[in-house]
């Protein structure tokens, strides 16, 4: 359908062509704008089970759409687009496309757990919000959270050396999250540490940060550990 009032249509559904011929009729020019249909054509039957495999999402199937979660929600009071009841509905039916539209607000849940307290069916909507946020992060729909980046750096160092070096974890975390290495609080922290810690301790720390020694007889433990964690994740989320 060609349209004039483009302002009423979501940008991603507007399809414009420079040249367009439909059934042999040249409709280039004024009539060349089409709207992609917004019809839901199928459900993803496995999606509910997928979200249930994440911690917090286990009870999503109990929801009967009463809306108590949304009504009690701290974030809904700030932004009416933040609607746990709606996302739970989408999750149950597997309407991923609709969910992804709200990717930039779902993670904003502040975990006040008012919804958890009020839910008559014990769905634990706060857990569902967490599960959804985790799913989106794992699917690459949303950017990795700083906490995830920190966890990864932490785990990586353990896999490699069987131990972590605080300085190195910090350094790489700042690098990966695009933060400056020399932050004011860090300067004060290091300065005080230098002032109060024994010299030998400081030297060991400095040496370890530069050389990152491995734990004795660490061998293949790191690889084994890494595999185990991967297997556990796959077992839970497929």
């Amino acid at each position: 359908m060609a349209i004039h009032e483009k302002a009423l249509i979501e940008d991603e559904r507007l399809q414009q062509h420079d040249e367009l011929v439909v059934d042999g009729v040249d409709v280039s020019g004024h009539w060349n704008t089409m709207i992609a249909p917004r019809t839901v054509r199928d459900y993803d039957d496995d999606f509910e089970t997928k979200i249930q495999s994440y911690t917090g999402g286990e009870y999503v199937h109990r929801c009967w759409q009463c809306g108590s979660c949304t009504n009690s929600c701290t974030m809904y009071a700030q932004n009416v687009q933040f609607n746990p009841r709606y996302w739970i509905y989408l999750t149950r039916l597997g309407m991923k496309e609709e969910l992804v539209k709200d990717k930039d607000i779902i993670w904003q849940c502040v975990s006040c757990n008012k919804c958890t307290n009020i839910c008559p069916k014990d769905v634990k909507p706060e857990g569902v919000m967490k599960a959804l946020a985790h799913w989106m992060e794992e699917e690459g729909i949303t950017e990795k959270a700083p906490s995830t980046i920190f966890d990864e750096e932490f785990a990586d160092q353990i896999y490699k050396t069987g131990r972590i070096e605080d300085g190195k974890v910090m350094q790489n975390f700042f690098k990966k999250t695009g933060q400056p290495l020399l932050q004011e609080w860090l300067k004060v922290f290091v300065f005080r540490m230098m002032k109060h810690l024994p010299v030998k301790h400081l030297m060991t720390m400095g040496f370890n940060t530069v050389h990152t020694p491995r734990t004795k007889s660490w061998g293949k433990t790191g690889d084994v550990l890494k595999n185990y964690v991967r297997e556990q994740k796959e077992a839970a989320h497929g």
Partner: protein
Amino acid sequence: MQDTVLVVGGGPAGLSAAANVTSAGYKAVMVEKEDVLGGAPILSGYAKLVPSGEWASEAIGRMVKRVEDDSSVAVHKSAKVEKLDGEAGNFTATLTNGETVQAGSVVLATGFTHFDSINKPEWGFGTYEDVLTTTQVEQMVASGNIACPSDGRVPERVCILLCVGSRDRQIGREWCSKICCTVSANMAMEIKELSPETDVFIYYMDIRTFGLYEDKYYWKSQEEFKTKFVKARIAEVTSSGDGRLLVKGEDTLVKRPIVIPFDMVVHAIGMDPNADNPEISQVFGVGLEKHGFLEKAEQYTNTCGTTRKGIYACGAAYGPETIDDSIAQGAAAGGRAVADLHALVQKAG
């Protein structure tokens, strides 16, 4: 002196009424237009009943046996009342089989007629083989095999459409049929039990699993059987061209049109007034309310009354009713009818 109550209709309500009449020491004459007793649960081959979970054939079968074994009940099958003369205390009914019955009071347990889905043609019944009604699926469940009639395959996805022939002004059904939400939730579980791989969806505008049916059906179907409830308005059911059906409408929560493929579509059909009600109204001289069910007398002091003295009613003749409540009302109507006889006895004595 009259010692007989005429009970019209041999379904759960009528069977209950007749049994109550004879247990008080009076006689009952039962007139049933079909050739078997038991009413809709038997005639339509219902599977397990809500809420007892008993098979209809066994549960209602016990009611039938109780009446058929009762020497104080005279049963006329394949017969209707053609004419009713006289007045309260002294009725004379002429039956279509030529017999006449003297009775002091009458209980109408004339029930309902299942909504005929042909009257909702856009939802595909009668056009596509795999569009069925809840009564048909009841029979499937009773036979222990869920399969698409078109090719016998086990459906991957079944949807149950609620309010077919209920709450629909477009086709003049302005009432809620009361039991379909619960029956459908129960059916979703039965389908899942017979075919665990089948996903069942229920399309609703509101869910009315009233009273004690909430946890046992509505909750359980979701929590244990993963039934999915979709709030939507259905426009039409068409064919996808590859042997499946397409359910078209609008998901009113997502506010988007939907066109979803299904292997089987089930109409949760409602209760219409008994198709014979105009005739019943004329023969017995009782009024009908605006939807076409029997009109109730003043409810608070004239329980089970109709617009005519000496004639009582019960169950789905008054409007959509559950089996359990129909049975209770049948007993109540039987009680009222007996009270009339008893008053006559005292007067005569």
